[in-house]
């Protein structure tokens, strides 16, 4: 493990482990408590496998009442809790702590209600993202956000991470597709936000909860909007000699009023890795390969395909193929969808980064990455959600070579700094977790971070839920609560007033 510093384990909690395990067993009887090293091993990391830690104990509750009792028990005794869905986080959001109960929500795996008239599904948080679509697809519906881990990731985890996917530009992130949740606060209180109606009342606590990375509450039920599957989808596969031309093509598509269902770009190393892996027929002489997918009514898609094709040609595309069958469309996507394993094939290890930039900065950021690649002596391949500016640089390294992980992490940090410099952000969809935690000050000053922590204080004043994640340093809520009032004087005495 590299230089990550996690909160110091609480000795008192560690020393009372047997008692805590026994108490957990009384709350969650049967197989719901795992305390053996062998049993807990599978939970020691999430998908950010470079970091591992055995938890104090693993608890798999089955009812909301159990979740509530576990949290209240821990809150009363100052015991930390780390919630976990399917453990697919790429940022270490579900990394266990030595002194924390790992609360695994995977047994909440039922769909509770499918309501086609209102186009909503109510699911328990452990249902997989794809499981929702599977439940409604025979009626022609689907759930729009589609993170690449959708076969495994849970809908509760999607809420915690505000997960995206390739269709975000047109269909939104998790936050735009969740109508309601039930959650349990650290003190055991059960709260419902929103529901089948379209907007929740009062403060937008649902907006705060979505993307809160398991620090504010434990989601026990999710109400999502489902959509009718588009009538048709077709894709264009477009190659450009330079990334500038590819970027300009993307800008012009949007300026023409076209919002594609998906718009993905790959750079030359990613194109080569994918082609070597799958032989899908990607052109190898391009610096940028663009996949533009248009979905919707047949008539509209046909109309827009022509428009995109002429924009591509105007921007100097050297290749422009248009799918004429569903099979061909899927073939265009196959290389992109397999980009991560394809890169995994050419390198023993890789780090997947996740910055977002204003689209127009793409050439500058790619050039910067090439320089950094030379500086660190590590290769990088790029896949890019071109429509919404979300970059996924894959940094190739070999963990068996001393210092390569550290160099890869430093390289990644520099890429994210670059993203922030050009007006972007540290993470588009993977979350801060532990991975980007210490980079937060690149984007936020102390006052900004204090406001975020004040939200935390409203939900979990003792910092017991998922501590050590998101915030580079924890400040006590009592300290944050102090007021610093400068008495009586107005810094701008001449503000117009009357």
């Amino acid at each position, binding site marked *: 493990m590299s230089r990550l510093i996690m909160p110091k384990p609480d000795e008192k909690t560690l020393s009372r482990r047997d008692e805590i395990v026994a108490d957990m067993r009384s709350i969650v009887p049967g197989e719901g408590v795992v305390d053996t090293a062998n049993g807990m091993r599978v939970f020691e990391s999430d998908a950010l496998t470079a970091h591992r830690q055995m938890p104090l104990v693993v608890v798999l509750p089955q009812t909301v009442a159990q979740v509530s009792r576990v949290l209240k028990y821990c809150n009363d005794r100052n015991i930390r809790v780390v919630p976990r869905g399917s453990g697919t986080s790429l940022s270490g959001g579900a990394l266990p702590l030595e002194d924390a109960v790992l609360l695994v929500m995977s047994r909440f795996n039922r769909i509770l209600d499918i309501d086609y008239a209102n186009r909503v599904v109510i699911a328990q948080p452990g249902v997989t993202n794809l499981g929702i679509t599977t439940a409604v697809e025979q009626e022609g519906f689907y759930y729009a956000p589609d993170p690449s881990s959708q076969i495994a990731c849970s809908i509760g985890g999607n809420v915690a991470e505000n997960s995206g996917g390739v269709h975000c530009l047109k269909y939104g992130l998790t936050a735009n597709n969740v109508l309601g949740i039930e959650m349990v606060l650290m003190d055991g209180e059960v709260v419902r936000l929103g*529901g089948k109606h379209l907007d929740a009342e009062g403060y937008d606590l649902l907006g705060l909860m979505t993307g809160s990375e398991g620090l504010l509450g434990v989601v026990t039920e999710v109400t999502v909007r489902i959509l009718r599957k588009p009538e048709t989808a077709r894709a264009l596969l477009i190659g450009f000699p330079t990334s500038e031309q590819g970027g300009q093509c993307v800008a012009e598509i949007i300026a023409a009023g076209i919002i594609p269902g998906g718009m993905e770009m790959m750079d030359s190393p990613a194109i080569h890795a994918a082609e070597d892996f799958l032989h899908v027929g990607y052109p190898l002489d391009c610096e940028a390969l663009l996949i533009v997918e248009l979905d919707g009514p047949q008539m509209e898609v046909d109309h827009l395909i022509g428009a995109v094709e002429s924009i591509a040609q105007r921007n100097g595309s050297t290749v422009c193929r248009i799918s004429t069958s569903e099979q061909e469309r899927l073939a265009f996507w196959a290389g992109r969808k397999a980009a991560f394993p394809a890169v995994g094939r050419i390198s023993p290890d890789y780090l997947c980064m996740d910055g977002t930039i204003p689209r127009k900065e793409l050439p500058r950021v790619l050039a910067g990455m090439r320089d950094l690649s030379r500086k660190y002596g590590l290769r990088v391949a790029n896949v890019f959600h071109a429509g919404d500016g979300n970059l996924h640089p894959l940094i190739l390294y070999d963990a068996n070579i001393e210092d390569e992980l550290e160099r890869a992490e430093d390289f990644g940090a520099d890429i994210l700094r670059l993203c922030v410099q050009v007006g972007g952000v540290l993470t588009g969809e993977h979350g801060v977790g532990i991975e980007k935690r210490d980079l937060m000050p690149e984007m936020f000053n102390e*006052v900004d971070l204090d406001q975020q922590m004040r939200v935390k204080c409203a939900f979990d004043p003792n910092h017991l839920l998922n501590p050590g994640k998101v915030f580079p340093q924890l400040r006590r809520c009592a300290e944050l609560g102090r*007021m610093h009032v400068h008495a009586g004087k*107005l810094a701008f005495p001449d503000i117009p007033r009357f």
Partner: protein
Amino acid sequence: MTTFTPTTPDEVLSAVQWALSEELPLEVVGQGSKRGIGRPQQVEHTLDLSRLTGVTLYEPEELVLSARAGTPIAEIEALLAEKGQELAFEPLDYGPLLGIEPKRGTLGGALAANLAGPRRIKAGSARDHILGIHAVSGRGEAYKSGGRVVKNVTGYDLSKGLAGSWGTLAVATDVTFKVLPAAETEATLAVRDLQDDQMAAALAVAMGSSCEVSGAAHLPEGVAENVSGGILGSRAATLLRVEGFGPSVAYRIDKLKDLLKGAPQVDEIEVGTSREIWRDIRDCRPFADGTQKPVWRVSVAPSEGWKLALALRMEAPASAYFDWQGGLVWLRMESDDPEAALVRRLVVKCGGGHATLIRAGQAWRNAVAVFQPQPTALAALSQRLKNEFDPKGILNPGRMGASAA
């Protein structure tokens, strides 16, 4: 009695710090278009943001716009229109309903009230389009959250946190919104004379189709005549809007007609009239009658709206019409009493949601909860959030309820 009229974010900060040090609350207003909504405030001093204006960034190809919070929506919409773009959440204009001239309101106000329009069913509300903010909290601290890119999960989404907060947590000074291409054209189908249950079924069929319906409303008999200069006549009209590129709109309208072929009469309404009708539905024009008769904005599951209105009318005289596939119920009570307990009992009976008393005489807004009262644990959580951001209760105290928030 002081009215601060800051022109820069620093001046906003200074005014809030002054109010904090004096422990004197501020009423935070933009152009005042929604000032009549909420519990009446007993606040001596005013923070008027109507001169904190100006677009600071607009990049059409990046689909992003930033502006000072007091920038008029009308100005923003005109600027976007030049590039064929819009605020896709279709912010409603409360002016006409509240007896104020139309087309007032600021971008910051759109966020604070989490405005939306008929397109809510497809595009969401202001909270779905806000990307970033700069704000001053009730602690007198200037902070930022979010950014200028669509995909961003860096830290808690404090920008969304201000949506629907009615100026009670922090004063936004700068807001950044996602903007989207405006549709090239639109058309509307009006299905006539449907009974309530038939209309609910028709709306559900249309919304469940692949026609990408962007407006789904029902104007009952007697309400229909009050939109777009009476062009619909008085008969009940169930309305479905389709927007997009010309050939696509024509194609989807035909598809919808096919889906609705069992209906007694289906009329097609062309783009100009369609726009007027949906503007009037959005702005609650049918009840913009110059009176103070109570008007409720009720949000329930789409399938339940008509049942709520039916049950209500068994007990109190009221008019209603429906947007958002039936889930947004606009209710006008025919007597001065808003019948708050009755309305909220029916919201619960219909599976939950909320009811906001948008228009009522001042005495009534003092006497009953304007915003939906929350269950104890949720109310406590909201109050803790308020206390964290505005511990001295200096920002719009009492506006959202009798307690500090």
